[in-house]
C-alpha cells in the first residue's frame, strides 16, 4: 500500500474510529468536539492521492476497490473541507443539548458515506457508502424532534429507500451484464452499453442518483429536509450530500457518447429543474428554504451540463462538471452557515461580516465576474454553449441571480440580534473560511479543468475573454429581483416540497390497498379457508408436477 492509498483508507477509517469511540460513554462525550477532525484525512487524500493507482482489496473473492480520479478528488476535497468546517460549527451551534452525542453518531455515519462515495471503486463499496449517506442523513434531519422535522425526515427516508431500491436493481443488472465476476465500477460501465437491459439500467440509475441530486420531480424531499435540519446539517446536506447523486451520474454514465438520446434527455431534465426550482424558490420566505431551492436549481444546471457533455461527447466533461459542483459545495455550504449566524450577529458587524460576503457568494451563482461562481460557469461553458441550450443556460443564470438576491433579502430580514451581540469565533471562522474557500478554490484550481498547469491556470484570462456574456444574466437577475421585491407579494405561495401535495392522493390510495389486503388476509386465516387452501395446494402442485413430467 502506498502512502496515497493509505490516505484513502484513512479517509474511511477516521470517521469509523470516532464511531467506535462512541461505544463507550466517556469517549462518547468527547466525540462532538472532535467532529471537525474526522474529514481531514479526506482533504489530504484529495490533495495528495488523486490519480493514485486504485487500491484493490481482494478479500477472497469480495473485491473492494478504492480509487480516486481527478473529478472525484475535486469533490472529495471540497466536501471534506465543508464537513470539517460544519463539524467545527456544529457543537457551538447546537450547544450542550441532550441529543448532541446522538447527533454526532448520525453525523459520522453520514460523513463516512458522503466521503466514501467519492472513493468507491466497486459496486459493493459504492452501494454501501451511498446507502450510508442517504439513510443516515435521516438522523441529522430529525435532530430537532419537531413534527416538521419528523415529517421531512420520513419523506426523505422514504424517497431515499426508493432510490436505494432503484440503484440496487440497477447494480444487480450491471453485475449481471459484466461477463466476469468482477464488481468493479469500471467494468460495469464498460459492460453497460452492451447490456440488453441498457434502457432499464440507465433509467434506474438516473432515478436513483437524480433523487439524491434533487432532479424534478424527485426533488421534493430537498426543500423539506434542508430547512428542517439544524444549520450545520443543512450545510452538509445541501453542499456535500447531494453530490453523492452527481458523483454517481459521473461514475456510471459512460462518457464516450455511447448513449444516444440519454444525454439530451438529461440536459432537458436538468434545465427544467433549474427553472422549476427558481419559480418555486422565489415564493418562499424562509431563507433556508430559498437556499434549498437554489440547490435544486444548481443541481439542475450541473446535470444539464453533464447531459450536454454526454450528448456532444465534449472531452473533459467529467472534470468540468465536477468543478462546477465543487464550487456549489463550498458556496452553498458557506451560505447555510451564514444563515445560522444571522441571529447571533448584530449591528454593523452584521453587514460587514455577514451580508456583504454572503451577497458576493450569492451573486456568484449567477456568474458575477470575479466570483468563484463565474469560473464555475466558465468551466461548463463548452457543454452549455450551443444555441438554444446556451440561451437557456444564460437565462437560468439570471434566474439564479434572482433567487439568490431574494435569499439575501430574506436573510437580511431575519430578526437581528441586539447590536452588541458578538458571535463566538469558531462559527464565525467556519463561515468566513468557507466563504473564502468558495471564492479562492475555483481560482486556484481552475487550471485543473484544462490541459495546462493544474494550479491557478488562466482564470483571469478566461474571465476577461467575455465579460459581457457573464455580466448580463447578473444584471437581468438584479432587475427581476427589483421587480420581485416590488410586486412579489402578489405571487401565490408554493408550499415547501411543491409537488408533494400530489402525494397525499397516492397515500390515500395506498391506505385503501392496505386495508383491502388486510381484509383478504383475515379471511384467509379462517380455519376452513386455510384448510381448503391446503387441499388446493396439494392438487395444484400435483397438477404442475404432472404437467412438467408430461
Amino acid at each position, binding site marked *: 500500500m502506498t502512502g496515497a492509498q493509505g490516505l484513502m483508507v484513512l479517509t474511511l477509517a477516521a470517521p469509523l474510529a470516532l464511531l467506535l469511540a462512541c461505544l463507550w460513554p466517556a469517549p462518547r462525550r468527547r466525540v462532538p468536539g472532535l467532529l471537525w477532525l474526522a474529514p481531514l484525512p479526506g482533504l489530504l487524500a484529495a490533495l495528495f492521492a488523486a490519480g493514485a493507482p486504485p487500491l484493490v482489496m481482494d478479500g477472497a473473492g469480495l473485491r473492494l476497490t478504492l480509487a480516486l480520479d481527478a473529478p472525484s478528488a475535486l469533490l472529495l476535497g471540497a466536501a471534506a473541507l465543508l464537513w470539517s468546517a460544519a463539524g467545527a460549527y456544529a457543537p457551538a451551534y447546537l450547544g450542550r443539548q441532550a441529543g448532541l452525542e446522538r447527533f454526532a453518531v448520525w453525523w459520522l455515519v453520514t460523513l463516512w458515506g458522503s466521503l466514501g462515495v467519492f472513493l468507491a471503486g466497486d459496486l459493493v463499496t459504492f452501494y454501501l457508502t451511498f446507502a450510508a449517506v442517504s439513510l443516515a442523513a435521516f438522523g441529522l434531519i430529525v435532530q430537532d424532534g419537531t413534527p416538521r422535522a419528523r415529517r421531512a425526515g420520513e419523506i426523505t427516508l422514504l424517497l431515499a429507500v426508493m432510490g436505494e431500491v432503484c440503484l440496487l436493481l440497477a447494480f444487480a443488472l450491471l453485475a449481471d451484464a459484466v461477463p466476469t465476476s468482477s464488481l468493479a465500477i469500471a467494468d460495469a460501465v464498460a459492460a453497460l452499453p452492451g447490456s440488453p437491459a441498457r434502457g432499464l439500467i440507465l433509467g434506474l440509475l438516473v432515478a436513483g442518483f437524480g433523487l439524491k441530486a434533487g432532479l424534478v420531480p424527485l426533488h421534493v424531499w430537498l426543500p423539506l429536509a434542508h430547512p428542517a435540519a439544524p444549520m450545520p446539517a443543512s450545510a452538509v446536506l445541501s453542499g456535500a450530500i447531494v453530490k453523492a447523486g452527481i458523483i454517481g451520474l459521473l461514475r456510471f454514465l459512460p462518457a464516450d457518447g455511447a448513449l444516444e438520446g440519454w444525454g439530451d434527455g438529461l440536459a432537458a431534465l436538468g434545465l427544467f429543474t433549474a427553472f422549476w426550482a427558481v419559480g418555486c424558490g422565489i415564493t418562499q420566505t424562509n431563507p433556508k428554504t430559498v437556499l434549498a431551492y437554489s440547490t435544486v436549481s444548481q443541481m439542475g444546471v450541473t446535470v444539464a451540463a453533464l447531459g450536454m457533455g454526454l450528448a456532444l461527447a465534449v472531452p473533459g466533461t467529467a472534470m468540468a462538471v465536477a468543478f462546477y459542483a465543487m464550487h456549489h459545495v463550498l458556496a452553498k455550504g458557506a451560505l447555510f452557515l451564514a444563515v445560522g449566524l444571522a441571529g447571533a450577529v448584530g449591528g454593523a458587524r452584521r453587514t460587514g461580516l455577514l451580508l456583504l460576503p454572503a451577497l458576493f457568494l450569492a451573486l456568484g451563482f449567477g456568474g458575477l465576474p470575479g466570483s468563484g461562481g463565474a469560473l464555475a460557469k466558465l468551466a461548463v461553458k463548452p457543454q452549455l454553449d450551443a444555441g438554444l441550450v446556451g440561451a437557456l443556460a444564460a437565462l437560468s443564470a439570471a434566474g439564479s441571480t434572482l433567487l439568490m438576491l431574494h435569499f439575501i433579502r430574506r436573510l437580511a430580514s431575519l430578526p437581528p440580534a441586539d447590536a452588541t451581540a458578538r458571535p463566538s469565533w469558531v462559527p464565525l471562522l467556519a463561515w468566513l473560511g468557507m466563504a473564502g474557500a468558495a471564492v479562492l478554490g475555483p481560482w486556484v484550481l481552475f487550471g485543473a479543468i484544462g490541459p495546462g498547469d493544474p494550479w491557478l491556470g488562466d482564470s483571469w484570462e478566461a474571465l476577461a475573454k467575455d465579460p459581457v456574456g457573464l455580466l448580463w444574466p447578473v444584471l437581468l437577475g438584479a432587475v427581476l429581483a427589483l421587480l420581485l421585491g416590488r410586486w412579489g407579494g402578489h405571487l401565490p405561495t408554493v408550499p415547501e416540497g411543491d409537488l408533494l401535495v400530489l402525494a397525499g392522493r397516492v397515500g390515500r390510495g395506498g391506505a385503501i390497498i392496505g386495508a383491502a389486503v388486510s381484509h383478504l388476509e383475515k379471511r384467509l386465516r379462517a*380455519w*376452513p379457508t386455510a*384448510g*381448503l387452501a391446503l*387441499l388446493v395446494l*396439494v392438487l395444484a402442485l*400435483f397438477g404442475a408436477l404432472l404437467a412438467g413430467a408430461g
Partner: protein
Amino acid sequence: MILDWLLDGMVALLILAAALWTLAAPTPFAAVIGFVGFGLLASLAWVRLAAVDVALTEAAVGAGATGVILLQSAVRLRRGAAEVAAATPGRATTLLAGLLAGGLGLGLALAVLALPATVPGPAAEAAARSAEVGLGNLVAAVLMAYRGLDTLLESIVLVFAVLAVWAMGPDRHWGGIPGPRFARQRDGPLALLARWLPPVGIVIGIHIAWVGADAPGGKFQGGTVLAAMWVLAWGAGLVRPPSVADRRVRLVLVAGPLGFLLAGLLGAVLDGSFLAWPAALGKPLLLLVEAAMTLSVAAALALLVVGPPERRA
C-alpha cells in the same frame, strides 16, 4: 379365494362405515365410540395384511389408549354447541371441501394403483441378517437394530409428550397429583374388574413384551397392556397417580430411552458403532433395554391418559 375376498371386502366396508360414523355421529361421545370401533376393525385389516405386530399395536395404542383419552375428553368437553355451530363453515365450503378431499383421495387411489407391483426393498437383507441381531421377529429387528434410531427418537417423543402435558397444568399445581380424582369403588363391576383383571393383565403384558423378540408382540404392545391395567385401577380409585415431582416416576419414564442410549454408546465403545448391539453382550443387553422400554412405555402411556396435574400432592 372367494372367502378371502368376502372377508376383506367386509372388513373394508365396516372400517369405512365406522369412519363415516366417527365423522357424522350426533354426539362427540358416540363419535369416539365409533372411533374405537374403527381402531379395532383396522387391527383386523392389519391381520389381513399379514402385519400382526402392527395389528397388536393398533389395537392396543391406536384403538385402546387413544380411545380412552378421547372418551375421557368427550365426557369432559360437554358444552359449547353454540360455539361449534358458529364456527362450522357453510354449505358451499363443505361442498368444496368434499370435492377437494374427494379429488385428493381419487388421486391417491390412482397413485396406489400405479405403484410398481414388486419393488426391491431392504426386506430380503433384513431377513438375511436378522441372525446378526439375534431377533427372530423381523419387525423387532427393524425396530431395535436396523432402524434403532427411529425407535430411540420415538421413545423420546413419549417423554416429550409427558412433560408437555404436565406443563399444561397451572403453576400452582406443579408438584401435585395429575388427573381427576376418582372415588374409591368398593363394589360394582368396575371394582371387581379392577381387582381381578390387573394380575392377569400384567402377566399378559409382560408376556407380549417378552415374546416380541421372536413372535409378534413387543414393548409398545406389552407396555400398553400394563398401562391399561394401571389405568383401570386408577379409574376404580384403587391407586393414586404419583406426584409429578416424584423423581422415581421420572426415572421410570426415561429409563427406556436412556437405557437405549447407553446401550447404544456401549455399542460405540465395544463394537465401534453407536446403536450397534455389541456381540459380547448381545441378547441379554437387548432384553434389558426392551424391559426398560416396556416399563417406560407403560408409564408414559398411563400418565398421558391421566393428564396434567390438577391438585396438590
